[in-house]
């Protein structure tokens, strides 16, 4: 068997581990457009903040490829996939044949069409080079503007603020993180960030980036000019699918995966930010470009590629952040549009809890301040069990797993992993 993996981040590495757990001998060729392996994209803002070193960005040791007998081609972009001849082609024409292929090519930042976007000091935040560029400029920076109120932009802004840079965040929507939070929870974050000197302008957009060669400032849609030395564009990401244009592989927003993480073409699999999977909360397929999904999808893809039947239940969007000691976790559908939803909210001065249900099942949640039990809600969401009888418990800070044991026993077929089963069994010593 010859395996080829396109992409060397979470999904690709996870697939290598899954393949090697079954097949220790076949060849694995891994191609990555990036020269630096094993760094964690999720942590780049921590690097900018100075909280970790470049070495601490690694999520696997540098010997990983050698230890797993992977032939890695770093800094080499695949230009074409040729399903008919079961091979891939590089920019220089070289071809490599495969028996099973995994596409884990990730995503790229969306470009924002604003005059002046090509000036020096306008950056996107996606890879280690972008982060390094920001770090190199941080000393000479007084003010930085972040365009967009998404998670990447906000994290970058937070990191710069921690480094002592004056940060202004320009958000088109009525609040930050509009993909993952509702107004109430977003305002708690905005309040905390403003207390720490971050200037957040909601309902505003930048119409021009001004300066000679380098950025000197931005002009807002109300005519205001803000002087700054750095502009971070954080307008979201899009899957890297351009090299598949001439193939039969089905692409919507991302590459469409079936429940074994195979694409519409046999022997070609997909995982990570480039994959479009069944979304457990919406019932439609969508791209949920987050680290835990990439890892899980990579494993399922790898197992199937190596001949083990494994099933991917589906994905859902979730994320966790902690700015200035205020933890926030959000998952699934958090702002309801349309009928058939139920929502429950509870707010205190420092905490907020919201639960969104459809047909008695959790499809979304937000936790602010007290987040320890978030994973319980995520598990109930994933297992799609009816929770209408236990809403008061779920909405309480008293929420705990032990009180959910009866529910897991009623839904034994969904909670069939050993970890759940053994909690319902008495220890041997106590059986009579």
């Amino acid at each position: 068997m010859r395996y080829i993996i396109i992409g060397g981040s979470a999904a690709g590495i996870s697939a290598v581990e899954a393949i090697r757990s079954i097949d220790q001998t076949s060849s694995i060729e891994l191609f990555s457009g990036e020269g630096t392996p094993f760094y964690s994209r999720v942590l780049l803002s921590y690097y900018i903040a100075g909280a970790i070193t470049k070495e601490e960005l690694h999520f696997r040791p540098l010997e990983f490829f050698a230890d797993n007998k992977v032939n890695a081609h770093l800094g080499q972009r695949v230009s074409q996939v040729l399903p008919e001849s079961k091979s891939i082609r590089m920019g220089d024409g070289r071809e490599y044949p495969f028996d099973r292929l995994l596409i884990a090519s990730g995503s790229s930042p969306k470009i924002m069409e604003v005059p002046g976007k090509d000036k020096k000091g306008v950056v996107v935040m996606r890879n280690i080079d972008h982060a390094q560029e920001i770090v190199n400029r941080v000393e000479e920076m007084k003010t930085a503007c972040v365009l967009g109120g998404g998670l990447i932009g906000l994290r970058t802004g937070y990191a710069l603020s921690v480094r002592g840079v004056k940060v202004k965040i320009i958000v088109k929507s009525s609040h930050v993180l509009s993909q993952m939070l509702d107004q109430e929870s977003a305002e708690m974050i905005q309040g905390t960030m403003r207390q720490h000197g971050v200037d957040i302008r909601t309902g505003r957009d930048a119409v021009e980036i001004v300066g000679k060669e380098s950025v000197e400032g931005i002009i807002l849609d109300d005519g205001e000019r803000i002087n700054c030395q750095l502009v971070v564009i954080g307008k979201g990401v899009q899957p890297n699918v351009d090299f598949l244009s001439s193939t039969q592989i089905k692409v919507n927003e991302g590459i469409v995966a079936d429940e074994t993480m195979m694409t519409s073409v046999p022997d070609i699999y997909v995982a990570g930010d480039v994959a479009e999977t069944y979304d457990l909360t919406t019932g439609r397929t969508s791209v949920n470009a987050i680290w835990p999904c990439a890892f899980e999808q990579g494993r399922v893809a790898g197992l199937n590629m190596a001949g083990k039947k494994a099933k991917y239940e589906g994905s859902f969007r979730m994320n966790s952040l902690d700015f200035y000691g205020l933890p926030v976790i959000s998952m699934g559908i958090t702002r309801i549009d349309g009928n058939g939803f139920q929502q429950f909210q509870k707010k205190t001065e420092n905490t907020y809890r919201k639960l969104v249900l459809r047909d008695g099942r959790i499809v979304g949640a937000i936790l602010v301040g007290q987040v320890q039990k978030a994973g319980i809600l995520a598990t109930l969401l994933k297992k799609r069990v009816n929770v209408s009888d236990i809403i008061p418990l779920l909405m309480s800070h008293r929420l705990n797993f032990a009180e959910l044991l009866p529910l897991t026993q009623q839904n034994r077929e969904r909670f069939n992993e050993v970890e759940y089963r053994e909690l319902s069994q008495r220890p041997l010593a106590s059986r009579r």
Partner: protein
Amino acid sequence: MKVIKVDPEKCTQCHTCDLWCGIEIGSEKKELNNAIHEKPQPVPRVYVEGNNFPLHCRHCEVAPCIDACPNGTMRRDPATGLVYVYEPTCIACWMCVMVCPFGIIAPSPSIHVAVKCDRCRNMEYPICVDVCPTKALALEEREEGATWYGYAPKRSY
């Protein structure tokens, strides 16, 4: 691998397990009278939940917390199968908290690391099992054939 099993019928909600966990695992001084004065306050890794159910980390066969951890801070000991936090590299992102099915990973606001039960992996025997006066806790071998995604992961432990 060995896991801690619970008999709720024997648990009298006396909290001896979490008290001793807090002292032995959570504190610097390892002695009650001194531990209660420590700052930050020592925290236990076992929670007596509901009325009578002491809950620990279950050391999942396919651990969602290890998948979600973005820099390899959440690790599995290959010899014992136990899942633990390598504290020096924890960056307090709470991704593990977000996915723990049992809600037993605590995002510590005072020391900025994820805090959870490692089943006393550096000790001969888990302290909570040792001190439980009614033997509601027991250390037992986990059954074979655990599956996730319809697949049983290979064990080295």
